[in-house]
Structures are given as structure tokens and as C-alpha cells.
């Protein structure tokens, strides 16, 4: 367990190991095979940020470049899943869901139900999400709340390399459609990742920091911010549980409930816009299910109700900061 690799390498390794283990796993997307038909080097790109690099040569015929036709190839992945494959389709940036959402939410997500339980649609849709790259309004969104809303989908948001590998392997083996979201700012994050194959089960939150004063629930990249804040606050005498749900659908509400029943204080940290977000989802749930335990108002720390701005100074204001998380924790801690 001593080997350190990056989040990006962990994802590549998960794909590689599953493709090796199971010939029904295929990978498709724009440039994931490195750029089909081009005259230069083979496997030149490996997806836009190189995440799939090397798979093309190792798994001939099973890593497929596509035209820029997201409805076409995401839908093809869904259809292939109905016919015995386990496709992993890469939708580069989750922001592009708007050109192919139908194939995800009306087709893949609903087949099993509409067809009376007779369909099985084991498709994984991988995409980057999140702000911090100065990539502006159309390449920086979270949008996981939208997928979480849709019955029939599962939604996975790993916050570190270990989870990225284990959750991706689980996603591929899972028999339901999975939206697998990778925070672009985490690709270079290093962490301990076993070389062998393993799964992280869905619907099991990780408690990444423990304490009895305040519960912090955070998602994706925000888990790391929350953990840092909890570390700082520990020194100041404030003890936080930091819960990383890891999957938002299914969602491990039990772990959150158990923690809030102990702490009575909740902060939810979500990089999304605030309205109908995961922040409101968790807050609403707790306000219904753990009201008796609550000793302070729930605090939601989110991005604002604005598109993601381009300029660095604005984007840095946009993203929930450790300072804002700390402030929210102190606010609920000190509430009488």
C-alpha cells in the first residue's frame, strides 16, 4: 500500500485492469485512442488530458475514438451495454452533457424500469468537472446534482486517488448506469494506491476526519478542503467529523445521520451553485430526519448563483474556500 500514484494514474490503472480482466469492457470517446486517422504517432493524446493514454496499444480494438457526436457515442455506449458489453464512455467535460443528456436520463436511466426489469445497462460515463482551471463558464461546472436527481442513475465523485481507482472499478462492474466524475484539479493529486485490483463499494461514505463538535459533509474536491480545515480547527480545539459520501446516488445518509445525531451541528460544502444542489439535498434531509438532534442552523457553503467566471481573481472568489468553510464551522460551533 506504500505506492503513491496520482488520481489520473489511478483512473488509467482502473481502466487498464478492468479491460484486462473482462473483455466486455470497452472505452470510447473523443481522442481516447489518441487521435484516429492522424498521420503522426499512434496514441498521441489519450483523451484531452491524457487519462486514457496507453490503453489503445494494450487493448487493441477496444479503445475507440469517436467523432464529436456526444449523443451518438454516449447513446451507442448505452446500446452496447444492453447488448452485453460494459462500455466506459468519456464525455470529456461534464459541461457537454447538454448535447447528450437525453441518452443518459431518458434512455440509460429509465430502461430497466420502463422495460419492467428486463434490461440491464452497465454503462459508465466518465467526465471531468469543477472549477479552478480558468476554463470559464462552459468548462467548469459540477452538475452532479442534476444526475443525482434522476432515478436510475448512480453518481460517483471520488475525492482522492485511492477512491478513484476503487470506485471506477466498482462502476465498471456495476450493473446500472454510472456517472463517474473526476475533478480536473485533482488529476495531479498523489496518494497511496494498491497495485492490485479492488473495489470501493457504492453508498458507503468515508469519514476522513473525526470529531464530535461539528459534522462537515463535503463533495469531491471540497473533501480535501474540509479535511484541511478540520486539521486546522483541531489545533484550535474544535473537533470535526468530515464525511465524504463518495457517491451521491446511492447516498450514505446513515453515516451523516449518525454523525449529526452526535454533533448536532452540520456544515455542507459543495462546489456547485446553491439552488437544488447537493448542499440543499443533505440539508433538507437532515432538517427532516435529524431535527431533534440539531443544535444550530445548518450551514451550506457553496459557489454562488453565478456562472463560473474566467478571470483568476473572480474564479478564486467563486470556489468555496477553506476560509469560508472554517467560518461556517465556527458559526455553527458558536451558535447558542
Amino acid at each position, binding site marked *: 500500500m506504500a505506492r503513491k500514484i496520482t488520481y489520473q494514474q489511478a483512473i488509467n490503472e482502473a481502466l487498464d485492469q478492468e479491460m484486462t480482466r473482462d473483455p466486455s469492457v470497452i472505452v470510447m470517446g473523443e481522442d481516447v485512442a489518441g487521435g484516429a486517422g492522424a498521420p503522426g504517432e499512434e496514441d498521441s493524446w489519450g483523451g484531452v488530458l491524457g487519462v486514457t493514454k496507453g490503453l489503445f496499444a494494450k487493448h487493441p480494438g477496444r479503445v475507440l475514438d*469517436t*467523432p464529436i457526436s456526444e449523443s451518438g457515442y454516449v447513446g*451507442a455506449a448505452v446500446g452496447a451495454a*444492453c*447488448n452485453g*458489453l460494459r462500455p466506459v464512455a468519456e464525455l470529456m467535460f461534464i459541461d457537454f452533457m447538454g448535447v447528450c443528456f437525453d441518452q443518459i436520463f431518458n434512455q440509460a436511466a429509465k430502461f430497466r424500469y420502463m*422495460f419492467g*426489469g428486463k434490461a440491464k445497462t452497465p454503462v459508465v460515463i466518465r467526465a471531468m468537472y469543477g472549477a479552478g482551471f480558468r476554463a470559464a463558464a462552459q468548462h467548469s461546472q459540477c452538475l452532479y446534482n442534476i444526475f443525482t436527481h434522476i432515478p436510475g442513475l448512480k453518481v460517483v465523485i471520488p475525492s482522492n486517488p485511492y477512491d478513484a481507482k476503487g470506485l471506477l472499478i466498482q462502476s465498471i462492474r*456495476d450493473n446500472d448506469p454510472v456517472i463517474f466524475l473526476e475533478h480536473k484539479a485533482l488529476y495531479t493529486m498523489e496518494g497511496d494506491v494498491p497495485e492490485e485490483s479492488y473495489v470501493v463499494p457504492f453508498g458507503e461514505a468515508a469519514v476522513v476526519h473525526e470529531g464530535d463538535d461539528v459534522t462537515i459533509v463535503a463533495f469531491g474536491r471540497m473533501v480535501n478542503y474540509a479535511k484541511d480545515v478540520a486539521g486546522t480547527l483541531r489545533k484550535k480545539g474544535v473537533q470535526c467529523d468530515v464525511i465524504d459520501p463518495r457517491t451521491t446516488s446511492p447516498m450514505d445518509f446513515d453515516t451523516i445521520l449518525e454523525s449529526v445525531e452526535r454533533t448536532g451541528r452540520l456544515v455542507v460544502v459543495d462546489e456547485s451553485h446553491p439552488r437544488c444542489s447537493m448542499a440543499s439535498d443533505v440539508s433538507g434531509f437532515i432538517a427532516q430526519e435529524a431535527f431533534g438532534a440539531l443544535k444550530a442552523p445548518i450551514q451550506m457553503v457553496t459557489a454562488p448563483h453565478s456562472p463560473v467566471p474566467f478571470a483568476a481573481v473572480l474564479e478564486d472568489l467563486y470556489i468555496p474556500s477553506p476560509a469560508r468553510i472554517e467560518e461556517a464551522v465556527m458559526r455553527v460551533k458558536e451558535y447558542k
Partner: protein
Amino acid sequence: MSSPLTREGLLQAYRTMRTIRDFEERVHVDFATGEIPGFVHLYAGEEASATGICMHLNRDDYIASTHRGHGHCIAKGVDPVGMMAEIWGKRTGTCKGKGGSMHIADLEVGMLGANGIVGGGGPLICGTALASKIRGSNNVGVCFFGDGASNQGTIFEAMNLAAVWKLPVLFVGENNGYAEATSSNFSVACENIADRASAFGMPGVIVDGFDFFAVHEAAGEAIKRAREGGGPTLLEVKLSRYYGHFEGDQQTYRAPGEVQHLRDTKDCLMQFAKRVTSRGELTMADIEAIDREVKAMIDASVVKAKADPVPLPEDLMADIYVSY
């Protein structure tokens, strides 16, 4: 033109077309009484298309269908008794009463679903065909879509993708002249849907959808080519629907007498019967036997559907996920 069909094949073709027709005529009648819920789009008049095409398919070939899916389902081998129960919203239905007319599917016979989303099937069928190809089988996929759907981005993307990946797919543009109330003369900017094939480097073929034999032959060639690795084809079938866009449609947008004229002069069942009997390939007795048999089966399916149980409360939360 000589028919490559055996007597068995001819009987099967007629039985399928007759089953579709009677199924649809019966749903039309029962819908009018208010007993059938939801949106129902009938395929009557278009039987030669689904039948002529699906006769070339095996169980492991897939079709993707449309909101007007009953005919495709029956032609691909979905049990009409289960379909009738589904349309009536019964637990014994093909989809346990949870899908309804617009979502009948039976993956066991390669029927990937009617579809409530116009154009939804194009990408999906590329996927089943891709799976067949990767597995090294010679199975094909057939995507049915309408003239209206031919303007949907998903259909264009699917045609390009199928060509780029050289997939064994047959795209069947069923041009019945209307998308809801809107004419295909208005909505399709080129003369024929088949003209679009060249934009995707594939053959485009036009065929008379009232003529079972013409459809059967053209589809046979295209499907053979697909099975042999020759890639996709776009087949435009010119035909007409006999009923409204959906049940309840008054069809005032159509020319007076338009449908009656087609029924009288071009009906696919009539033409088929005339041809096979005049050639002595089948007898009137053969035809009438099938007519009787099908009528009895459809009648029985309705009796059963009416009597069948509705879904149970626990079905509401069943089969959303394989596991959750």
C-alpha cells in the same frame, strides 16, 4: 420479379402483417371507449415495412423503434398478448405495465424498445451493432425512424457514427409524409430522406412501403451487406399511416379522402394477397385461415388483458436499479 420466399415465408409474412393490422385496429376501437390510457400511436398501413425488414433478422439482431412501435415489436417477435396487456397497463404486460405503448421492449427477442423520444433509437442501435461487431458475430442492428425524426440531430450523428465505425446497421426512414401535423415536404429540406445517405458515405435506397416484396428485397440486400462487414445503409420506405398521429387526432391537416384512397388502392395486405393468390403461391383459403386465426388471437388477447391484474403497489419501487 421472382420472390425468394418459400411458402412458409409467405405465410409468415402475411400472418405478421395481419397480426399488426388487427392489433392496431383493435387498439383503435378500444381506445375510443376510453379504456386504454395514455398516448397511443398506431402503425396500421405501414405493416409491410416492419414485416419486410424484420423477416431478415434473427433473435440476436436488434431493432430500435419509435413511439409508433407496435408493428416493429410484433415483426421482431414480441408476443402480442403481452403487448396488449402492456397497453392496457396490466402486470402481465411485456413491461409489467410500467412502460405502456411508448415503451414496449423485449430485449430477449432483440427489441430495444419503442421510444418516447423522437430520434432516440439511432445512437442506441449503433451500440448494439458495435457490441455485435466487437464480439465478432455477424448480427446487425436496425433503426426505425420517421420522416420527422430524420431531422433530429441524434439520427444524423448515428448515421455518421455507424459509417465511421463501419457498423452493421440498417437505418430505416419510414416516410409517412407527416410528423404529427407537419408535412415532410416542409420539414425535410431535401427531396428524399434517402438523399441524406451520401452525407454519410453510405448507400441510400428508396422503396415503396406498400409493397411488401419491394421492402423485403431492398432490406435483404442491405442487411446482407451489413452482415458481411459492408457497413450501414439508409433505406427510405415511403408509406402512410391510416390513423391519426395518436389516437384522438382529428387529422384535419390531411387532404380529404387521402387515407381512404390509399386503403382502396395500395393497401399492403390487399396487394400482398392479390399477388400471392394470383400467382398461385398461396390460396384464398390460406389467407382466410390466417385472418381467422389472427382475429381469434387478438380477441383473446383483449379478453385476457381486460381480466389481467394491475400492478401491485410494491412494483412502484421495483426495478429502478439492478442493485442500490
